[in-house]
């Protein structure tokens, strides 16, 4: 059986070293936070200017001045800090974040990332912090389903969608396999509900 999003989030969380400074992208990657052990010491960074972000705010905790990158109200943990946008992006661009987890339309076997724009005419491009995270974090993990709705692999020899960054992704976490990517090409680390041989046949990369 392929993994559910929650099961996959737990696998990503398992691989984040204790004490890491981590940025979780909008969407699926946000769920990784729910699976980090309480004692992991992982510090979450949100691009709009906060370290040691806590879980989503509920009820009386909701404060319009305290939101995450997805504009969702969140909470602060003891030891949190706030800073302006140039400082927040210096943390990314200056190589201070240990790990970021991003979603993707496509990843190439050499680690190119396409996740900001479909490139379709009429689609309004919106990049946000994706390009800064892609080039800045020490390790860039991608979390996505391996196949699109038409059954085509999103791990590709060369991205056809507009690029976010070149050679920036180190590992791809998918519902059927965890795959390392980089200058040496793709290496399957583990599979879920599929053998490595079956996976190679379906991927054709």
């Amino acid at each position, binding site marked *: 059986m392929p993994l559910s999003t929650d099961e996959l989030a737990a696998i990503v969380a398992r691989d984040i070293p204790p004490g890491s400074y981590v940025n979780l992208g909008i969407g699926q990657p946000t769920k990784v936070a729910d699976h980090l052990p309480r004692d992991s010491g992982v510090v979450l960074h949100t691009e709009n200017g906060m370290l040691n972000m806590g879980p989503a705010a509920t009820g009386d905790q909701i404060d319009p001045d305290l939101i995450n990158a997805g504009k969702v109200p969140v909470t602060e943990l003891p030891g949190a800090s706030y800073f302006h946008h140039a400082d*927040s992006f210096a943390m990314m661009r200056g190589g201070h974040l240990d790990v970021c987890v991003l979603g993707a339309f496509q990843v190439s076997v050499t680690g190119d990332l396409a996740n900001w724009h479909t490139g379709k005419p009429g689609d309004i491009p919106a990049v946000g912090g994706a390009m800064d995270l892609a080039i800045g974090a020490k390790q860039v993990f991608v979390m996505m389903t391996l196949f699109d709705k038409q059954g085509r692999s999103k791990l590709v020899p060369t991205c056809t969608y507009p690029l976010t960054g070149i050679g920036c992704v180190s590992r791809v976490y998918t519902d059927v396999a965890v795959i390392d990517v980089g200058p040496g090409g793709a290496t399957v680390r583990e599979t879920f509900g599929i053998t490595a041989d079956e996976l190679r046949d379906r991927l054709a990369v």
Partner: protein
Amino acid sequence: MSRARILDSADEAVSGIEDGSTVLVGGFGLAGMPFDLIDALIRQGAKELTVVSNNAGNGEVGLAALLQAGRVRKVICSFPRQTDSHVFDGLYRAGKIELEVVPQGNLAERIRAAGAGIGAFYCPTGAGTSLAEGKETRTIDGRVHVLEYPIKGDVALISAHRADTMGNLVYRKTARNFGPIMATAAATTIAQVREVVPVGGLDPEAVVTPGIYVHRIVQEAC
């Protein structure tokens, strides 16, 4: 004598903003959005504006209302498309507004550079992507960097939590976002704050934006 003047109304605070101005607008989504100043700018009537902000308006309030009023010629931002950006989306699809999409870190650093007197800078963000097309590049330490120029404002409209009468500002939580850098990067910086306190009312160690950067202050309408 301080550079900052405390004004009685948002209308006074935005007076004199000219047609065609480049206006830096603080906020990330609605957090830190200077609503009173934007509403006053709509009443003031300046048009053909270039707006620099992280987003291109949410819902029908704040920046979205300024767009809706037809005062904005061009938006420079990192993330226009959101679930509630229908005002911008409609204008863009109708060809009534120009868009320059800038990676968020470049947006922040270009604003910071403008305020700090940096003529331009090289950064790897966007190298090899369509957002770096036509820009100068240089390989530094084996890595391709892209040349980026400052973004300077004629005016910055920002929101802060508290000001003293010297113009020193402190912010609150993630509403800080672009406020401190935009304050440095405009010829005239206008801040709306929730509270104005006397000189000495802010801890100097905790001041985020020193008053040298702030020209006009107005307390938010309750």
